[in-house]
């Protein structure tokens, strides 16, 4: 088994009759920072959500550290793994969402501690100290006992990132984490992600921030109509796109405007 952190093979996913992923292949090594770009409806978010089984998929395999996610094949029959097993596998990845999805009835620290206590079975004190460490890291230690409703969008998203990363995932998934933010709040979130990338955290980002994708990632994947349209290092991708589709997409995106 090659030492891929993430290996996606021939991923197929349909909603009813509509096929949104039509055979995606992708591998990722430890420490890779990969941005997934593409127009809406191209399947970027769906692909990300398949990786932690927030979406079921009908064909192909996804493995993390060689461990097959979500499904197993027994006697030629493909079966969904047991709920408990899937829950354990979901904790291999951390995810930050477009809408933050903090738990509104818990303080920032409690949001981060919940998974540590209930999934990792740490004591309250251990969980608290890890939570404080990560809240400090995203610059929000002073807000540890604030509730999500008392925080700005950018602060909420940073807490959400701390919540995901405190679980010590093998891989972080970012799903358009700045799309719901006011423009002046985008930067504080991107800075956090950038500093995590510099620490060697492996991450997969779906983003519309082309400039950010260009700066932070070592590889870019362009999704087009449920397939990978083009992939490569950001320099090639953004400056010398091979396909018509990608150059068109870049023209209409924020990257073309500079």
């Amino acid at each position, binding site marked *: 088994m090659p030492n891929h952190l993430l290996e996606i093979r021939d991923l197929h996913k349909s909603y009813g009759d509509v096929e949104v992923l039509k055979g995606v292949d992708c591998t990722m090594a430890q420490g890779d920072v990969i941005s997934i770009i593409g127009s809406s409806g191209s399947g970027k978010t769906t692909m990300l959500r398949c990786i932690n089984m*927030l979406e079921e998929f009908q064909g192909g395999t996804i493995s993390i550290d060689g461990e097959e996610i979500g499904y197993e094949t027994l006697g030629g029959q493909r079966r969904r793994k047991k709920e408990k097993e899937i829950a354990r596998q979901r904790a291999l990845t951390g995810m930050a969402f477009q809408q933050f999805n903090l738990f509104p*009835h818990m303080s920032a620290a409690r949001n981060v501690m919940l998974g540590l206590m209930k999934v990792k079975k740490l004591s309250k004190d251990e969980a608290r100290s890890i939570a404080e460490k990560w809240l400090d890291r995203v610059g929000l230690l002073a807000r540890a006992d604030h509730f999500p409703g008392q925080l700005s969008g950018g602060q909420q998203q940073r807490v959400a990132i701390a919540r995901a990363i405190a679980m010590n995932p093998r891989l972080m998934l970012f799903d358009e984490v700045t799309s719901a933010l006011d423009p002046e709040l985008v930067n504080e979130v991107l800075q956090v992600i950038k500093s995590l990338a510099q620490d060697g955290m492996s991450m997969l980002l779906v983003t519309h921030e082309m400039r950010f994708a260009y700066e932070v990632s070592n590889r870019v994947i362009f999704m087009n109509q449920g397939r990978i349209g083009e992939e490569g290092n950001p320099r090639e991708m953004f400056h010398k796109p091979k396909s018509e589709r990608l150059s068109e997409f870049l023209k209409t995106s924020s990257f073309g405007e500079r």
Partner: protein
Amino acid sequence: MDIAHFLDILWLARIPILKGLGFTISISLLAICFGTLLGIFVGLALTYGVRPLRWIVRGYTDFIRGTPVLVLVLASYYVLSTIGLDLSPFQAGVLALAVFCSSHVGEIVRGALQAIPKGQTEAAKAIGLTFPQTFAYVLGPQALRQVLPAWVNTAAEMVKASTLLSIIGVAELLLRTQEIISRSFLSLEFYFFAGFLYFIINYAIERFGRYVERKTAIPS
């Protein structure tokens, strides 16, 4: 209206009135407790149940909610005995009210759970929580806050509906009051007094609801 005369009779009738009040409170309390417990299961089944179960429970709630409480009370007293289930008036009454309560609480619980954004479940899944954990720590506590105001309403309805048990001869507050009136002919005074007692009970329930709401309010 002779206040002194009324107070005299009231004093003489204090024991039956207190007994009636005790019955009303215990009937209501039992109906609310059992009804709420059952209602939570109804709400869970309506929200998360597999399809056949959901259909059955949906049928149950629609049927119960579409039936007058009085009919439920009469049915649980008279109809159940024909199939060999002999309940005392008190038991039959509590059963009818609890069933009625459960269908309402079930709908309230379903509404509250469905009002929670999907992102909450997804975020809980993403950190590796199982469904029971997600329910216990993420969905349940949020639903509880949503449920409270409507639940207080239903609880107050149960207290009022307990008067219907007088029909099958449960000696609750209304029946006791009527007995006193039939002897003293002070109908205005005693109906008003009974109404006042019901108001006190429901006011207490409402205050309790407000108190819990305040205690569990999310700072924002």
